[in-house]
């Protein structure tokens, strides 16, 4: 008699709904009056479960088995059940006994005593050496055990997955994986795996077997046997088969082709040429409006919308001030027929005869676009000066020559303490006192050696990497109003710092940042793509086309300006008014980036776990999303039905939410970076938090095309364009398509800008002003170089040195020019008031990071921990790490940084400004940060010296030099009435402390 029944919860659709058999002891035929009506009523909240209790017979027996509704012929099937042994039932194998109990999946039933072995998958308990262990097997020769020994009085959740290594009907179910007490994140980590050459080819029956080792006194309980087709389903999560993503990605805008009824050459050209070209053609057209140039003409029409085309509005206008051709001019007005032709031509898509009217290639004789020419290095002839003796690197010869031609004399070398402090601050953003054991240099050679040491230090990389982060408009949040954090963005910052520390060749540095995801194998550098991904990204944008285009515009502008020193943004709407960049050039450049987007990229190349977590999370999310959308639609909400991710999570049931949270937690532990991945690159993308994220659909991303957007309007779609660089730099070969191709062109010998722009930036960061002052604009509106030959010579040195940034640093820092004092000369000033010839060192204020870091260093508070996630700076004194590690969330950049002109990380920043406002002294005198620094500085003095020496030591620490006698006297006078803390705070406010002198 059956005392218990089992709940076979069949989750597969074809298995039908869960069903509980009748439960009871009564033999209904024996008693008419006593019995049960209907099934047990069970609480929805649970609280009761149904178990089978199984005993052995001492022989092979199949006490429980069940047929599937339909033969299973898919490629993978999950079976799950709960298993419990009474502790008293368990015999240890030492007794020569042990336990045996399995679940099998087979083609046939085979009857009560069938063996279900030899290619039949078994999952259960068997003797393994001296233990009873969980086992998976197909036969005794293909048998595997897990590490988990069987314990009594304990419920195990056993999950098995049977699958085909070779998918498709008729192939063997030859792979068996078993999990014991699995978590949703364990998909890639089964406890047992087993394979077999020979195995069943369909599944029809599932049952339990006991054997000779299973005794009549054994108490084995099983329950909750269920089937599932997917991993998620085996956890009771039921993803809808039909997945609807939110919102559906828009189909790429297509330029519909209709059969034209208007012929450009015969119908349109005569009208334009007779009525318009008189004024509106050629290089200097009336009002700058040119109609014989296809790219420019496109800006005056709206293809397929004649009615809203400015050109049509003008020729149809009755207003004599607007009407074209002008009524008082020589050209005749257009006839209604001619206007009709123009209208049809526009409505049919604006065809063009490129043979008849080819698009002229813009050429430019602007200096920056000419090839780099390597100048000869010559020094001024004696006896005009003693400059020969002063020249320390070729840099000096260029500087001296210009100075001599203007009659300007360079300043003498600065004193050693000044130079040592200048070099320390310039290279590391820290004062010399931050380098324990450093002796006062007394020769140029000693400084040279020290420079070499600093150039490979972490401190150098932390300062110079920050300059690069300005260019990359790098931040750790999306910006715009939701401004969600990017918790993995810090890895790009660390990539940059590492690159500077190791003097990564600049050409490779570019390649990795532009195309790190495309690079093969171990050279892949996903962290580097944080450069592209640092673009802002609006989470509240429902229009996916606008959302994507905004990002692309940001990427194009930043890339062009950072590497080429070109301001391309004007050409987004119209051909550049000054530089040889057309609107077509702009969108061709954009086309390099169109088939990619930002996201969290997994860094571990082999991360099967994380991939499975991400897939499971996505499926679970999508299924709940679909359910919620369907519910809303059913309740009458009109399309488009929009459900934000947050609502999806709150719409999950408790089981779903738990699984979702487990998956999210697991995914968050996987190393990843906020980077850029192209449709063709081998990357795994983890989800990111966003109100309306870009759809993550690699296939759709791969189909993205690039169109010229007329007047920069996303909705005004012009012709499709292929990737290419601006035509003024020569033709783009047809084979060019990838970002790798773009990066290779950027550093090719044909490109005159990349090397010039980079050496100029290095020069700017050393001297405060570039050889080209507008370091982000080498176009015709930028300033010309003060020393063009020097610029080219440095650019040549960069390339010849294998793109070594360190080499350029050395050339500059070893020069006499760099080592001048700040001594003022009225006669020089009269000739060159702006000091463009660099006749002295011009003191300049430290950047915000160097100010904060120097204060911390002098106060003895600086925490030099390198790398890792950024640290919060909520109340100024929560972290004393270097400023480059403070959290850089847009709109929330720490006050200590923004107050001293840190950029807001919205667009690329080539050069910081120096503002001088009264809020700065308030901060430097009154803030908690400064109070804390003043106290720490004073403590440091007390611990290291006697009170009568504290003034001298304080000056040494803060200013890197010995105090003069009158300074000592002045400070001691101050200390008569005031505390050491008060003096320390004052010293940290000195101009000399805050300036690089």
């Amino acid at each position, binding site marked *: 008699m059956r005392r218990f029944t089992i709940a076979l919860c069949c989750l597969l659709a074809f298995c039908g709904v869960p069903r509980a058999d009748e439960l009871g002891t009564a033999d209904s035929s024996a008693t008419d009056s006593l019995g049960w009506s209907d099934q047990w009523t069970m609480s929805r909240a649970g609280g009761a479960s149904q178990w089978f209790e199984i005993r052995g017979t001492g022989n092979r027996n199949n006490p429980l088995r069940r047929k599937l509704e339909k033969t299973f012929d898919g490629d993978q099937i999950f079976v799950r059940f709960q298993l419990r042994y009474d502790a008293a039932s368990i015999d240890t194998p030492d007794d020569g006994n042990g336990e045996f109990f399995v679940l099998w999946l087979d083609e046939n039933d085979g009857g009560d005593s069938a063996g279900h072995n030899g290619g039949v998958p078994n999952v259960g308990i068997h003797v393994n050496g001296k233990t009873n262990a969980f086992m998976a097997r197909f036969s005794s020769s293909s048998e595997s055990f897990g590490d988990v020994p069987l314990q009594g009085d304990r419920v195990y959740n056993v999950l098995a997955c049977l699958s085909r290594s070779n998918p498709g009907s008729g192939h063997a179910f030859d792979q068996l994986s078993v999990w014991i007490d699995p978590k949703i994140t364990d998909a890639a980590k089964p406890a047992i795996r087993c394979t077999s050459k020979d195995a069943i080819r369909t599944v029809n029956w599932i049952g339990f077997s006991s054997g000779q080792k299973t005794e009549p006194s054994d108490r084995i309980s099983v329950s909750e046997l269920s089937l599932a087709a997917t991993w998620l389903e085996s956890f009771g999560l039921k993803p809808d088969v039909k997945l609807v993503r939110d919102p559906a990605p828009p189909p790429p805008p297509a330029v519909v082709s209709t059969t034209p009824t208007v012929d450009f050459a015969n119908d349109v050209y005569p009208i334009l040429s007779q009525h318009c070209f008189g004024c509106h053609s050629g290089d200097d057209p009336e009002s700058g409006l040119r109609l014989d140039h296809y790219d420019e003409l496109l800006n005056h029409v709206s293809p397929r919308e004649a009615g809203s085309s400015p050109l049509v509005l003008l020729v149809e206008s009755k207003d004599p001030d607007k009407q074209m051709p002008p009524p008082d001019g020589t050209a005749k007005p257009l006839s209604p027929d001619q206007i009709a032709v123009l209208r049809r031509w526009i409505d049919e898509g604006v065809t063009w005869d490129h043979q008849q009217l080819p698009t002229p290639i813009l050429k430019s004789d602007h200096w920056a676009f000419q090839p780099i020419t390597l100048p000869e290095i010559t020094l001024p002839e004696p006896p005009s000066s003693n400059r020969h003796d002063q020249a320390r690197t070729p840099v000096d010869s260029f500087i001296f020559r210009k100075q001599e031609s203007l009659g300007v004399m360079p300043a003498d070398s600065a004193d050693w303490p000044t130079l040592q402090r200048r070099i320390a601050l310039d290279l590391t953003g820290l004062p010399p006192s931050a380098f324990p054991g450093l002796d006062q240099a007394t020769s140029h050679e000693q400084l040279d050696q020290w420079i070499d040491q600093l150039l490979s230090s972490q401190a150098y990389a932390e300062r110079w990497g920050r300059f690069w982060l300005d260019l990359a408009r790098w931040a750790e949040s999306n910006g715009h109003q939701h401004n969600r954090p990017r918790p993995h963005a810090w890895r790009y910052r660390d990539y940059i710092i590492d690159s500077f520390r190791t003097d990564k060749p600049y050409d490779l540095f570019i390649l990795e940042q532009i195309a790190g995801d495309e690079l093969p194998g171990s050279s892949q550098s996903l962290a580097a793509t944080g450069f592209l991904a640092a673009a802002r990204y609006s989470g509240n944008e429902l229009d996916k086309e606008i959302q994507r285009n905004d990002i692309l515009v940001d990427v194009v502008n930043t890339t062009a300006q950072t590497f080429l020193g070109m301001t391309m943004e004007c050409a987004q709407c119209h051909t550049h008014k000054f530089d040889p960049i057309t609107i077509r050039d702009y969108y061709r450049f954009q086309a390099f980036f169109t088939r990619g987007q930002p996201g969290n990229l997994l860094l571990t190349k082999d991360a099967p776990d994380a991939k499975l977590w991400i897939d499971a999370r996505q499926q679970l999310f999508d299924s709940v999303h679909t359910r919620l959308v369907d519910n809303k639609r059913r309740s009458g909400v009109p399309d488009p*039905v929009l459900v934000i991710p947050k609502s999806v999570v709150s719409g999950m049931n408790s089981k779903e939410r738990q699984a979702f949270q487990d998956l999210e937690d697991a995914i968050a532990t996987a190393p990843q970076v906020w980077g850029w991945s192209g449709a063709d690159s081998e990357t795994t993308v983890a989800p990111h938090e966003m109100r309306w994220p870009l759809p993550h659909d690699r296939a759709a991303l791969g189909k993205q095309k690039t169109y010229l957007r007329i007047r920069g309007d996303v909705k005004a779609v012009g012709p499709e364009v292929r990737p290419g660089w601006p035509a003024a730099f020569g033709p783009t070969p047809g084979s060019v398509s990838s970002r790798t191709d773009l990066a290779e062109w950027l550093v090719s010998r044909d490109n005159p800008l990349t090397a010039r722009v980079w050496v100029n930036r290095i020069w700017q960061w050393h001297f405060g002003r570039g050889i080209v002052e507008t370091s982000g604009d080498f176009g015709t509106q930028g300033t010309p170089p003060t020393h063009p030959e020097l610029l080219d010579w440095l650019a040549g040195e960069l390339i010849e040195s294998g793109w070594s940034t360190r080499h350029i640093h050395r050339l500059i820092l070893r020069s006499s020019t760099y080592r001048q004092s*700040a001594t003022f000369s009225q006669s020089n000033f009269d000739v060159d008031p702006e000091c463009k010839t660099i006749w002295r060192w011009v003191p300049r204020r430290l950047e915000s990071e160097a100010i904060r870091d120097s204060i911390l260093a002098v106060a003895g508070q600086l925490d030099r921990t390198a790398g890792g996630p950024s640290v919060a700076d909520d109340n100024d004194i929560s972290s004393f790490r270097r400023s480059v590690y403070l959290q850089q969330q847009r709109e929330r950049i720490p006050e200590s940084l923004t107050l001293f002109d840190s950029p807001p990380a*919205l667009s690329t920043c080539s050069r910081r400004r120096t503002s001088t406002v009264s809020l700065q*002294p308030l*901060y430097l005198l009154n803030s908690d940060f400064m109070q804390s620094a003043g106290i720490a500085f004073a403590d440091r003095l007390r611990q290291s010296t006697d009170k009568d020496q504290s003034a001298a030591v304080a000056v040494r620490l803060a200013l890197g030099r010995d105090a003069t006698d009158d300074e000592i006297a002045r400070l001691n006078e101050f200390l008569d009435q005031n505390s050491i803390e008060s003096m320390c705070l004052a010293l940290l406010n000195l101009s000399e402390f805050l300036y690089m002198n």
Partner: protein
Amino acid sequence: MPMTKNHRNWIDRRSFLYGSGLGVGAMAFQSLACASEAKPNVVHHTATASSVIVLFMSGGPSQVDTFDPKPDLDRLEGKDVPESIAATIPKIKRAGIKNLMRSPWAFHEHGDSGIPVSELFPCVANHVDDLCVIRSMQHDNPVHGPGECVALTGTAAGNRPSIGSWSLYGLGTANENLPAFIAMNLHTDGMQFPQGAGWGSGFLPSGFQGTIVDPSTGIRHVTMPPQTTDQQRMDQLELIRWFNDRHLKQSGDLSELKARLDSYETAFRMQTSAPDLFDLAGETQQTQDLYQLENPQSKTVGKACLLARRMVERGVRFVQVRVGGWDAHGNIKANHSKMASRTDGPIAGLLSDLKQRDLLKSTLVVWAGEFGRTPTMEGRGNGRDHSPAGYTTWMAGGGVKGGQIIGATDALGYVAVERPVSPHDFHATILHALGIDANRLTYNHHGRDEVPTVFGGESIQEIFG
């Protein structure tokens, strides 16, 4: 050019200790905001305003529920937008054309001008004869963040200077003891993160950016640490001055270093003048009542509005009060009622107070959001979606001819059809009131002479009567 102050005794103990150097405009200092880079004041024509208060209603107040009554919505409730109007709606997401929704509020005509205002704003309604209501604002960005950037900087990217920064750049400061451009962000607990670009300086020197002020705590770091006495601070400043003078001489008289010297002087005075600004104890009960400071709903905005008046009184050029929370996607009735209860009394109080102090004529008061809302219902939630195609703003004071309406939307309030006004026009109008021609105020950035209204704004001349 910067005045040199070499001949003046920098340290004057009395002026430091008793803050006597507070006279508004007493000294022809260069801009506090940017001592080293400020241009001389630019005046292209006679200014009608010397200060601006922008009341920025973030989230998008609905035009058809406030200042732009559309009786047709009552008739067409539940219907779709007729094709004739639907065809004119710019192709932007969120521009729903199904299920028109009537306004939950009735409109009444007010004042001599008879300008209709909905029952949402019973207090501001009393001031309509001072308001110039612009019903035809229009742009094309339906998203809060970029929309706010468009409304306050002219472009969605938010990388250009804010209108406040341009104003300050053109005008310079009138009181070097206070920041000349102050921004207060209120009720920011909602979805719309305040956009830094709205008070940022873009490519202008950062000294022209707005200073963020919390109405309850004032300007940051303006208070000396409690353990520091005036005497100690005096001694510190003298010591700093002693060293900095030497450094200045060694550095060849850099103007930037001179500006640093000045900034310490100003900072010290600010320590006195800023707390005074935020100390409302001197305001009469009557004045405090005017701003509804006792009402828990309105006290936050009320305090900011009162501070705005005090700032303007002290020569602050540009005050921006941002009130978040107008984003009524669902249940517009509850949302806008709450927002009105927060703002209506204080704004009316500000207008009254400015007027009674004769400050309204020199203070341009601007009320605007980043966009308006659709006349249709969004989903089924009794709310409205974002709509930049036609929305309402108003200006008052500062030479504005009150009691007039400029522009019009279509019969449903969806699209501006008469005299469309772009945010660039709006900015040019603000600058015009300040005596600045937006096309002639230039700043050289990367070799280009940039102007405030790069996308072609023209001031709305009829606003000034």
